[in-house]
């Protein structure tokens, strides 16, 4: 049961409706000339690829051979920060680039090297790599192969794990022990990485105390070291590394102050001169010292953020909460704050990432989740909405870029005007803010033994995973393709694409006499494969701990200086270091449901007949496929189908809890698919839910398979609410709406009620995908996949695919192109 949070819902309802409507600043659709200019600078045809950062790191590493790893890494960071070219673009108010050029990408060698064919792949994708750079990259490969986590994991993987890695059941499939899936990463961000950690550092600490305070703490702790402590040297190295790193960050800010001063001296524009002079003064002061104004705070935040990236999943934390004291102290006008918030959005847009050929698919486009959380409750359970909550939403609406991500925490007492404003912003088409339910998140944290007050302070890492600022870090997260296990069960332990036997015979499908026998076999295989996945997670953690101690991120965690240990050598309040994250779970659910009904209950389909049809990818078995398609499906509130979903989600959570993490505690269950439903689907054979081989899997974790939910949003929600989501770190849930179904204030109010009902009954997340014109055209061509698309026609809500062609054309005509850069 979800623990009851604060006042009852009815009390909250009356409270939130009694609140005054809105913030006293004018909403505006206009973009200031500065923001227009900065957005214009984002339009580049190709992000410049650079090896400057890698070269500097390599130099530093060559000079520190034999020192403890944490010190070598600190010196490498310092060498980069002291020498990487810097620049300030015209019009910028927040300074600091994530690479040696604006919009640049820096090649790195931590989670994969860059063999010749991958360099060629970069060129094919349109990136320029000169012959000289290629030679240097190959030389660096040779150096960094000793520090590459992928190659190291390849060395440690035993035969069973090696078979498992090749299947790609945890994406992406491995090609060789040396190079893994092939290719490394090139990213923006000046920190040490590597980056797939779901964590929120304590930004508030930097704003409030400044880095000099952290340096001072570390120096005092160093002075107090006594060599009768067996860990004294490890602790000492860590503390020295913290001092080296933070001093370098302060020098780096100083370089920007110098640059701004030089530019101020040469500019002829008096307005810009004043801006640059102000920027210089700010960079002299932060992040070394406590921030005194909103502008100082946002600059200090950005310098810090540059150091916790490269990472596509570095979180921006509860921004409206930790920025509030500086906002209240000194923020000029709200218009100035809005301009800075938009500058921050643009700064984040300059961050990019590419990876090797295979991994490129796993995260489509330039996917990243620099997730800024707003709203929710305070530690005492009262509503945390403040002026900055509104301003962040307004900044999204004025500057609707794809990044950074914004998530609104919704609780029973979230003011209705704020919900309405959030839905209006969502309607613009960026899908932001995402909405998450405090009840389910807080219930999860409490079930993990986190005290209620701490639980109420959660933030989001990646797209949806729970983090506690400064008090948790998920560092091993995979994309596990569940329907592949279903296929493995049908083939008695063999993976179809690679022909690899994964180590467990669970019985021939044709020998099962009942659904229960088959279901037990599936769960046996699932547990077996998850155990292998957990082994890989732990191996990754141990290797990262050995190779990648990070003095910066570690020092921005709670109690870091006292503990004097890197973050992978500590156990945190929420110990969610390793996750078991599902992709395509709903395809497995629907497949189990269909097999149960047709094969084992009705006995209208033979076991061999089904195996043949799947092996033939339904070709020549079209009638059979239609019968499997017609079987009950998750997403319609149907107990027959939802029962298996409910049970299987519990089984997954139980399994996670039984698999230990090497950092302490157990694995944690999570449900985010990102864009892995595509490559995951590509690797998976035909499934009895009627899906073809290679076809994309269901997105999210709690969404239905595309086009299989036929009872509207409430039907889909009723299915999702049956699942105990409070046992999960995250549970992605997408709803598609056409903007026409969210037109009037009344429409938005009802949408708000829909979301509140879902959250009140255990829902964790809602993402509204406001559909574009292109989607509608696609839906017209392929109605089977878009049966759930709701549009509004002159006062009537209707399913788009049920409309006649002429009406569809009319709606397509009415749907504006929403170009979002």
């Amino acid at each position: 049961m979800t623990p009851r949070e604060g006042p009852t819902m009815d009390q909250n309802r009356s409270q939130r409706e009694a609140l005054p409507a809105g913030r006293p600043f004018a909403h505006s659709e206009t973009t200031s000339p500065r923001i227009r200019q900065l957005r214009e600078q984002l339009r580049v045809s190709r992000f410049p690829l650079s090896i400057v950062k890698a070269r500097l790191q390599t130099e530093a590493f060559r000079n520190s051979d034999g020192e403890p790893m944490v010190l070598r890494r600190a010196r490498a960071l310092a060498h980069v920060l002291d020498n990487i070219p810097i620049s300030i673009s015209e019009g910028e108010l927040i300074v600091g680039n994530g690479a040696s050029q604006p919009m640049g990408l820096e090649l790195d060698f931590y989670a994969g090297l860059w063999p010749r064919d991958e360099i060629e792949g970069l060129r094919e994708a349109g990136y320029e790599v000169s012959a000289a750079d290629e030679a240097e990259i190959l030389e660096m490969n040779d150096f960094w192969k000793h520090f590459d986590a992928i190659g190291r994991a390849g060395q440690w993987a035993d035969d069973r794990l090696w078979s498992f890695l090749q299947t790609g059941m945890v994406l992406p499939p491995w090609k060789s022990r040396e190079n893994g899936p092939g290719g490394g990463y090139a990213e923006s961000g000046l920190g040490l990485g590597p980056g797939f950690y779901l964590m929120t550092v304590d930004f508030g600490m930097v704003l409030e105390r400044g880095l000099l305070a952290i340096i001072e703490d570390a120096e005092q702790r160093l002075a107090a070291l006594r060599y009768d402590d067996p860990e004294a040297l490890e602790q000492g190295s860590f503390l020295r590394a913290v001092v080296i790193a933070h001093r370098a960050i302060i020098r780096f800010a100083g370089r920007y102050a110098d640059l701004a001063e030089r530019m101020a001296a040469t500019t002829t524009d008096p307005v810009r001169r004043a801006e640059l002079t102000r920027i210089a003064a700010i960079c002299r002061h932060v992040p070394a010292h406590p921030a005194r104004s909103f502008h100082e705070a946002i600059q200090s935040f950005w310098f810090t953020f540059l150091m916790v990236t490269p990472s596509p999943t570095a979180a921006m934390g509860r921004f409206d909460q930790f920025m509030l004291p500086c906002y209240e102290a000194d923020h000029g006008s709200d218009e100035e704050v809005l301009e800075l918030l938009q500058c921050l959005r643009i700064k984040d847009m300059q961050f990019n990432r590419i990876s090797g050929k295979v991994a490129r698919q796993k995260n489509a486009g330039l996917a990243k989740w620099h997730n800024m959380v707003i709203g929710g409750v305070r530690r005492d359970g009262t509503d945390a909405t403040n002026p900055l909550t509104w301003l962040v939403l307004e900044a999204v609406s004025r500057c609707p870029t794809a990044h950074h991500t914004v998530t609104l925490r919704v609780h029973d007492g979230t003011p209705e005007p704020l919900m309405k404003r959030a839905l209006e912003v969502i309607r613009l088409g960026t899908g932001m803010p995402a909405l998450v339910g405090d009840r389910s998140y807080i219930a999860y944290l409490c079930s993990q033994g986190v005290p209620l007050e701490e639980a109420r302070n959660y933030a989001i890492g990646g797209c949806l995973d729970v983090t506690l600022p400064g008090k948790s870090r998920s560092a091993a997260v995979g994309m596990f393709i569940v329907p592949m296990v279903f296929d493995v069960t049908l083939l008695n332990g063999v993976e179809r694409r690679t022909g690899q036997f994964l180590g467990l015979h669970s019985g021939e499908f044709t020998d099962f006499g009942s659904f229960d026998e088959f279901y037990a076999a599936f769960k046996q295989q699932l547990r077996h494969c998850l155990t292998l996945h957990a082994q890989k997670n732990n191996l990754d953690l141990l290797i990262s701990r050995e190779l990648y101690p990070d003095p910066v991120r570690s020092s921005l965690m709670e109690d870091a200086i006292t503990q004097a240990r890197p973050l992978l050598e500590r156990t945190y309040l929420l110990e969610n270091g390793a996750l078991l994250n599902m992709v395509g779970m709903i395809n497995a659910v629907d497949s189990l449901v269909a097999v149960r009904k047709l094969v084992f209950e009705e006995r209208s389909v033979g076991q061999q007949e089904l195996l043949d049809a799947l092996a033939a990818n339904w070709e020549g078995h079209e009638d059979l496929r239609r019968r499997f398609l017609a079987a009950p499906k998750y997403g319609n509130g149907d107990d027959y189908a939802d029962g298996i979903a409910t049970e299987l989600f519990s089984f997954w959570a139980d399994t996670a809890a039984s698999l230990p993490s090497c950092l302490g505690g157990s694995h944690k269950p999570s449900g985010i698919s990102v864009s892995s439903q595509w490559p995951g689907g590509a690797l998976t054979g035909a499934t009895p839910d009627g899906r073809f081989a290679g076809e994309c899997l269901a997105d999210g974790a709690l969404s239905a398979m595309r086009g299989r939910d036929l009872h509207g949003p409430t039907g889909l929600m009723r299915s999702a609410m049956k699942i105990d989501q409070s046992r999960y770190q995250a549970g992605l849930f997408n709803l598609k709406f056409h903007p026409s179904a969210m037109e009037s204030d009344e429409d938005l109010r009802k949408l708000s009620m829909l979301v509140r009902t879902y959250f009140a009954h255990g829902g964790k997340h809602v993402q509204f995908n406001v559909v574009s014109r292109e989607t509608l055209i696609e839906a017209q061509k392929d109605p089977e996949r878009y049966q759930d698309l709701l549009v509004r026609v002159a006062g009537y809500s209707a399913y788009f695919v049920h409309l006649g062609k002429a009406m569809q054309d009319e709606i397509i005509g009415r749907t504006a192109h929403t170009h979002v850069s």
Partner: protein
Amino acid sequence: MDRAAAIAPSLTVPGPGGLAATRGSVFNVQRYSIHDGPGIRTTVFLKKCSLTCLWCQNPESQQEAPELFFDADKCAGCGRCQSVCPEGAITMRDGRSWTDRSRCTGAGHCAEVCPQGARSLMGRYLSAGEVFREIAEDSIFYEQSGGGVTLSGGDPLAQPEFALALLRLCKQAGLHTTLDTCGYAAWPTVRQLLEHVDLVLFDLKHMDSNRHRQLTGVGNEPILRNVRKIHRELRRPLRIRFAVIPGHNDEIANVEATADFVAGELGRSVPVDLLPFHRFGEAKYQRLQRPDPLAGFVPPDPAQLAGIQAVFQSRGLSAHLGG
């Protein structure tokens, strides 16, 4: 506690017999219906209507019996429907199936076997209990949003016993009920149904009875009588819905007469929804293989709608565009 049980409707479902056993013909149950009354609603569309409006948007709702929808674009001409039709009503023409509508009884066997989904049956006979169970599934959404159930059609008054049974079941369960009607029925029937209705959405088509007869097949006297009584005797909350059909009921004289009627006979507290005509129903005529009567109709332009809205407002009425 079992989670499924925790979110299941707290309403009691009546057992077999009595109200719950009353059967009727339904052609759609639309969930998350947000334009047919307050809050999040489920709208139940009942088949059968006493009117035959020229511009009917739901032609599949006019008769009580289930009817075949046929989407010719989807038909692959496989002929399976032909082999299962008990009436021998289906033949193959030009590589597609063709149904002799005069022989089709709406049994629906063809829809069951059609591999392309080209054939579907619009409407099914259900018991009030079955429909209520579907309605009750979304109870938690009604609670939070102040929503409930809306009966629409067709016209629910054309299946009065069934509508009554449904309304009574919903009221017993404490749900908010809305009746969307064109109001053509004997007063005792209307009165009996309205005992279980919280809000009435009442259509006015034309104020001139002869013109009303030309457009809808019936005179408007009982309709106007009923709406007066609903407001004056029963004092039920009421919204008037006026579908704006260019060239048929949008002439200034009728708009003014309608506005005068609402303001004078019902009062200014009764809100009016102006529903602009659209061609939503076009594809339905094709699928029923009936001639499309909507070809000559055009949607009103925004300026014209604003003018009509102004006429209502000039009588002190609140008039909204859209439902």
